[in-house]
């Protein structure tokens, strides 16, 4: 039995389609009340994970618990408590956006009519148009409004803002902030780093169907390297030998190197006695953080405790 503070807990989840392994021992823990960023390159298994959580796919191996139930066995009961926004929204061409929003809400067990109208206004969507005439962005809005107008305690969002313009992106972020204030839980799969940084309490990065990192953004930053450029009075020697220092370029009194952010303090102490003339330190950008994880070979057991 999972504790009630865990909205989602997945351990060792595997899923293959024919010969292709989509998930290969994935772990994911989402605490109740948090907004959890779910990141990974295309084809890394994010959508497959969400489909397992929706009970559409049956896991080959591993433990999956969601809202205290089994997503496969208890699908119908659990679905009353969650809302889902797919990344690639296909709608019934002959039905209007307004009708689809109402229908999906009713099938989930009711929707807040005032909130629905308010969201239509905020997302600037004409609900009277038939779905066949909507652009990709507008189809996305239909699915988003249907999901956000619910009072579900868990929101599963699979790249929900792909196709939205920056204005709508900021409306979306406000909406998620409100959801967060209401104490609801969000699993947000996303590629938009600014969005993740603005919204997420914690993130999990997956690659090739496996979790490579998980923790708060601060935790993750800590795991990466800071770039240092330094000029000293005395010649720089022995820098390479220090632990946590990488890619060193020394030229008499000048040096450029990367340092594990966790070792930054030690290194600065070592530099100080040499007489620092100038020092620039560039913290890792989120892009670097993610690119490093997207590119790198998956490291077994690379998960950080939070």
């Amino acid at each position, binding site marked *: 039995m999972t504790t009630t503070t865990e909205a989602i807990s997945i351990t060792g989840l595997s899923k293959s389609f024919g010969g292709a392994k989509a998930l290969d021992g994935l772990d994911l823990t989402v605490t109740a009340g948090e907004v959890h960023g779910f990141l990974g390159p295309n084809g890394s298994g994010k959508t497959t994970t969400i489909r397992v959580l929706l009970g559409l796919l049956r896991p080959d191996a591993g433990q999956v618990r969601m809202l205290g139930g089994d997503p496969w066995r208890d699908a119908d009961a659990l679905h009353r408590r969650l809302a889902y926004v797919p990344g690639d929204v296909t709608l019934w061409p002959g039905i209007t956006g307004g009708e689809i929003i109402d229908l999906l809400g009713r099938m*989930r067990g009711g929707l807040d009519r005032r909130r629905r109208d308010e969201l239509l206004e905020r997302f600037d969507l*004409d609900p009277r148009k038939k779905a066949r005439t909507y652009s990709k962005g507008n189809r996305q809005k239909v699915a988003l409004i249907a999901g956000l107008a619910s009072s579900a305690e868990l929101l599963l969002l699979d790249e929900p803002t792909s196709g939205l313009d920056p204005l709508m992106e900021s409306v979306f972020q406000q909406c998620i902030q409100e959801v967060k204030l209401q104490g609801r839980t969000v699993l947000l799969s996303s590629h938009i780093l600014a969005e993740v940084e603005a919204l997420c309490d914690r993130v999990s990065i997956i690659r090739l169907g496996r979790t490579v990192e998980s923790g708060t953004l601060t935790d993750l930053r800590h795991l990466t390297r800071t770039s240092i450029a330094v000029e000293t009075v005395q010649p720089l020697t022995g820098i390479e030998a220090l632990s946590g220092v990488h890619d060193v370029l020394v030229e008499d009194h000048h040096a450029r190197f990367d340092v594990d952010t966790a070792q930054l303090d030690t290194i600065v102490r070592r530099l100080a006695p040499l007489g620092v003339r100038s020092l620039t330190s560039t913290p890792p950008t989120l892009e670097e953080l993610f690119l490093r994880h997207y590119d790198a070979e998956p490291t077994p057991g690379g998960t950080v405790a939070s």
Partner: protein
Amino acid sequence: MTGTAGLLRFMLRRERAGLPWWLLGATLLVLVQSAQSQNLYDSPEALQRLRQTIGSNTAVIAMSGPTRLLESIGGEVVFEIFAFVAIVVALMSMFLVGRHTRAEEETGRAELIRSARVGRQAPLAAALALAGLANLAVGALVFAVAAGTGLPVGGSALFGAATAAVGITFAACTAVAAQVFSNARAVYGAVGVVLGAAYVLRAAGDVGSGALSWASPIGWGQRAFPYTGDRWWALLLPLGASALLVTAAVAMLRRRDFGAGLVPPRPGRARASRSLRNAYALAWRLQRGSLAGWAVGLGLLGVAYGSIADSIEQYVRENPQVAEFLPGGAADIVNAYLALTVGMSALIATAYGVTSALRIRAEETSGRAEPVLATATSRLTWLVSHLSVALTGSALCLLAFGVGEGTAYGLTVSDAGQVPRLTGVALTYLPAVWLIIALVVLALGWAPRPSPAVGWVAVGYCAVVTLFADSFKLPEWVQRASPFAHTPRVPLVDLALTPLLVIILLAAAAMGAGYAGLRRRDVGY
């Protein structure tokens, strides 16, 4: 116009799997009719008797064409089959033009093409050229088959040309509709209405003074009178009309924006009605249009068959060879005829049931099932919601046919009791229809990918066994695999309930097993 030739080659490539079937269908209709008619009316006396029987039967004239065609055996073939070949050719032309113009624009694929070195009119020009080629092929095939079965060469050439002319007219008509409406469904709907009107106008004209037939593209073809008058000049009408329509289409195309139509899409409801609240309401909403189409079509077919039931008896007495085609022989002619027509309508109702059941798979593969199954809707509810349309809808189709045939037949023999009688007769086939639907459900559960193939092979198999078992002398066990072979051929024989109950139980078991498979498999793959 730049790029037309390249586009035409591309379209031909895309149509290589579908187009041959249309050509084959049109050719077979003419082939079978020509062989059958020449076999049945092998003497001038037989043809003379036919003229007397049919000349007074307005229902047959309304269904077929002007009686002047009955003056020669070739004309008789045209009389019987031209309207149906015309419908096939018109539909072929409509889909060819619609699919490569408006449907391409609607899906956005045309945008990619137009961004290349392709002129504004090129897709329309290529689609019309494609339809033109297809119709020339139909014309050549009709000529070859008609002349090849021994009909006069000159008349056969006009027969082929008249057939092609109808197709070209409807291709041009579709070209206009594709500029007016901004979605392909509306285009097909509009052309379908024109086609229906063309059939009704010529029916009214042929029964009456003939004036109205001149307002119908099908009438133009028939009134060229192949084999009996050989009026080639009548084909100037479809050619002139096509030229006018294409000119109008091009004029509209040059004025309109890409993706837009002349008729802006109407706004719909901002809120769902109170009834659109669950998976059942959704399934019925999605399928109601197509169900209505099938049911109305079968109802009209019932009226057509029912209206000539009474004259069948007299007809067969004068043409004893016809009796060989009826299951009960000459002894019980009307009932044999009714049993045969109801059996055919049941096959059509089965085809409807299979298309409806396959919507379940289409919803799944298109990704539209996913948001529904992510709500509190269970897989069982989702399956049953669509299945309820297939099962009830196929019953409605049979009902429509039975009521149509019963009403038309009842009117001709002044017996209102024919309506409930023939409705009951039609519904006898319901268990067999349901068993084929159940087979599709079984496939959906355990072998979803080949489920369309499973459904259509089953329909085709039943059709072959029902229609050709006797003429092909198929072995007994081949026939017995079809549920239709176990359905009592009422009203020719007495109703036996046991086989029907067994079929229903089998259907229920197959549907249950199908659900068991669906419950344990991945959805969306």
